[in-house]
């Protein structure tokens, strides 16, 4: 490529990995965030999967503006993920943060050299592991059923005497109280299930990262494997990522879904397997990354 052609491009970096023939073969089949052909930048014992992207779209101002538009952000995220996921099957891949862009390949090479002592141990730790996402929700459809059951077999004094004796206003308040109690119980059941799942997961996982529970419009669009109904809705009360040895990945998934079975008012979603995005961070102070005893 000529010097002037280079100036019109920047280098988008997706992931760090080992420079193997398999890696070279894998990137050759991948296209990136700008539908560009992905390739490898190599040093002695490290490589970065990169692609040339148009400077006018990826220089700082354009990129920042683009990231603030959801459709553009989504396209970028899916493009980035497509490359990382395409390399994850190689066994060890270190995903880079979204929108990691360099001026040229030499700068990428320099970063690989400068950070070599961090990248190599990280790659070693993540090799042969996958990430699973585990999300626990309260399930309002289920708790409504529980509420109806509660109304059918009165237990407390307020209903044992017959709601017929209550004024409409008091009956309404009693019903409201029951509903509120139902929601609270559903939340607590979900919380207990979340704790049990965390315990179960801790037995197989070598690392755990708690993401923020999901809220907002995007959270309403579900995905992933589900136990307990599979209907959307409900409040996300736990959103964790677990690092699991690849050869126990299916066992992990099965055990999590089994732990969630038969829990009324709770819905559990397992997503993945993911490339180890949530664990591709510089080593934290140890406790943060360890499974917590529950």
């Amino acid at each position, binding site marked *: 490529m000529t010097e002037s052609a280079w100036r019109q491009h920047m280098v988008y970096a997706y992931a760090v990995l080992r420079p193997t023939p398999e890696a070279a073969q894998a990137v050759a089949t991948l296209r990136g965030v700008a539908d560009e052909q992905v390739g490898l930048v190599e040093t002695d014992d490290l490589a970065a999967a990169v692609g040339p992207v148009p400077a006018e779209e990826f220089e700082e101002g354009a*990129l920042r503006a683009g990231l603030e538009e959801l459709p553009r952000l*989504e396209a970028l995220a899916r493009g980035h993920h497509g490359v990382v*996921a395409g390399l994850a099957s190689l066994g060890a891949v270190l995903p880079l943060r979204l929108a990691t862009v360099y001026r040229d390949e030499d700068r990428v090479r320099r970063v690989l050299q400068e950070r070599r002592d961090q990248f190599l141990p990280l790659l070693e730790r993540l090799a042969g592991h996958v990430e699973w996402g585990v999300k626990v929700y309260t399930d309002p459809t289920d708790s409504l059923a529980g509420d109806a059951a509660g109304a059918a077999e009165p237990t407390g004094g307020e209903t044992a005497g017959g709601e017929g004796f209550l004024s409409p206003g008091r009956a309404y308040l009693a019903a409201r109280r029951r509903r509120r109690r139902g929601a609270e119980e559903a939340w607590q059941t979900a919380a207990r299930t979340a704790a049990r799942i965390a315990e179960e997961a801790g037995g197989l996982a070598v690392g755990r990262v708690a993401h923020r529970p999901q809220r907002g419009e995007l959270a309403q669009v579900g995905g992933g494997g589900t136990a307990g109904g599979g209907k959307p809705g409900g409040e996300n009360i736990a959103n964790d990522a677990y690092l699991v040895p690849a050869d126990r990945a299916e066992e992990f998934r099965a055990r999590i879904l089994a732990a969630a079975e038969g829990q009324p008012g709770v819905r559990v979603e397992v997503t993945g397997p993911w490339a180890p995005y949530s664990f591709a961070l510089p080593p934290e102070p140890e406790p943060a990354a360890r499974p917590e005893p529950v």
Partner: protein
Amino acid sequence: MSGALDEEDARALAGREVALIDLLDRLLQGGVVLAGDLVLSIADVDLVRIDLRAVIAPVDAEHPAPLLP
């Protein structure tokens, strides 16, 4: 997932059906952060996250961050 996957498996792993929010959880909070020659710094990406909070994760009085797990 251990060992090599054939092309179809690899495509499945690439996950066209992945929910955007799960992806953003990982891409905006995870992944190795490189500074130095980076054109767009991590601070900018965090800004983006804040700007998108209305869509991704509104936090208000009715939905305080739960204490779990």
